[in-house]
């Protein structure tokens, strides 16, 4: 399927909540078929930016195009084509893990086999566990499964490995790399510098609602500093 390039194009995005400016003229491009990491301190505007791309929020100023579409006006056309992994929650408390995955699969035309996907993410042993009794890492993996079960062209994953043990983290990284190899564009936010370094083709560092540094991990660390040094250098300490 031909995908317009770039997958995401944001220009001059401004988002305010009352007196707070969460996003302040942010510009960012995500090329198709890449893994792009968005880094930034808490409150830098990462989640707000992602939620604007996902059509949850209307851009107050600036333009946002996702797969060539307006996330608000073309929402119905866009939603089947993207996968969204929420930071937390997103399921009935009494629903069983695999039941939830089957349900979301049924909303799509050509979903992945839910049982095979669950098995791939190591969820087969908690398939019948109610959502409220899943561990944090299991909830995260289920969230990722829910984001990709519909075979999207583009996935947004918000802190995909938060609360995961090292095994689950590796499984998740492998899956994200496999998605890229299959032609899926991945946009992820993370607080883990090693995650960004190992996974991402491109890193955007966001601070106070603007992109303050962009490039491949190798470019950003070309002067011998670690990515964390660069991050600490270009961003401000968050109040949260």
């Amino acid at each position, binding site marked *: *399927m031909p*995908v317009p390039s770039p997958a995401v194009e944001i220009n001059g995005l401004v988002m305010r909540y009352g007196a707070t400016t969460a996003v302040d003229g942010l510009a960012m491009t995500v090329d198709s078929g890449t893994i792009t990491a968005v880094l930034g301190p808490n409150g830098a505007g990462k989640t707000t930016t992602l939620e604007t791309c*996902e*059509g*949850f929020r209307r851009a107050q100023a600036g333009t946002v195009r996702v797969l060539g579409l307006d996330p608000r006006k073309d929402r*119905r056309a866009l*939603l*089947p*084509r*993207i996968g*969204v992994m*929420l930071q*937390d*929650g*997103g*399921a*009935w*408390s*009494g*629903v069983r893990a*695999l*039941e939830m995955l089957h*349900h*979301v699969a*049924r*909303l*799509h*035309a*050509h979903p*992945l*086999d839910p*049982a*095979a*996907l*669950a*098995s*791939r993410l*190591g969820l*087969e*042993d908690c*398939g*019948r566990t109610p959502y409220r009794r899943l561990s944090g890492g299991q909830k995260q993996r289920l969230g990722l499964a*829910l984001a*990709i079960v*519909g*075979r*999207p*062209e583009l996935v947004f994953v918000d802190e995909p490995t938060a609360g995961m043990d090292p095994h689950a983290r590796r499984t998740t990284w492998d899956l994200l790399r*496999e*998605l890229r190899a*299959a*032609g*899926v564009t991945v946009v992820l936010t993370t607080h883990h510098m090693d995650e960004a370094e190992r996974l991402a083709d491109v890193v955007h560092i966001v601070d106070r609602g603007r992109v303050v540094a962009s490039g491949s991990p190798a470019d950003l660390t070309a002067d011998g500093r670690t990515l964390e040094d660069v991050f600490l250098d270009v961003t401000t300490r968050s109040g949260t």
Partner: protein
Amino acid sequence: MSPDQRWRDPHAAPGARLDLSPAPGAAPFGLQVLAQTRMETRLLLRNGEQLLLAIVIPVLALVGGVAAAGRLDLDLGDQPVDVLTPGVLALAGLSTAFTSLAIATGFERRYGLLKRLGASPLPRHGLLLGKIGAILLVELVQVVVLGTVGFALGWQPDADVPAALLALVLGTAAFGSLGLLLAGAVRAEATLAIANLVYLLLLTGGGVVFPTEEYGALGPVLEWLPSGALGEAMRAALTHGSVDGRSMLVLLAWAAVAALLTSRTFRWE
């Protein structure tokens, strides 16, 4: 096959390759609504508190009401079970369309489920249709159970079945809209408390189970409430085989006003 194995794909060893290449698309709208209806019905029937509200309390109200009416020698005009069964059917509609829906929706909002589905191919009107489907299915179960209990207690309806169905549908529309109005406006915990409180108040003093005329001076007021209107419309349809046009219009008006307010105020997150 053990229950565990049912969920396992025998061919998919960990690390097996999945075809992750993009193949996006929404399922046909009808199938999405069907999936949502199925899911919501299953969750509702699996939840102990919801079952208590949907089945146990109405059955107790019917059995207890008939027993009490006999012992207290209450004069309801007709055989007590003939008056109480339509009233308890109205109560069952109220509990499912209002209390259960409000509580479930409140927690769906709180747990981010509405947000998750908001990012899925299921449109909001599909979600709403799924909820309506689940409510109607649960009401069907309630009608079968309560009807059976009623007949076992000697219920002899003089029934206008289409009028009873219309009353139940209008009542469901009115209470369902009010339930969503509540769930979309306040926190989940507040929804839980208010929905249960309103249910208790209407159960005892809302003109649902007992005819509004039993409430003395309060009766004429209750006839303008959706609870009294639904109760009266059901009793007219099932006790006297007649259509209570005014109560139907009262329900329709409540449904219209609440639906309008809900569409203006409902917050999905």
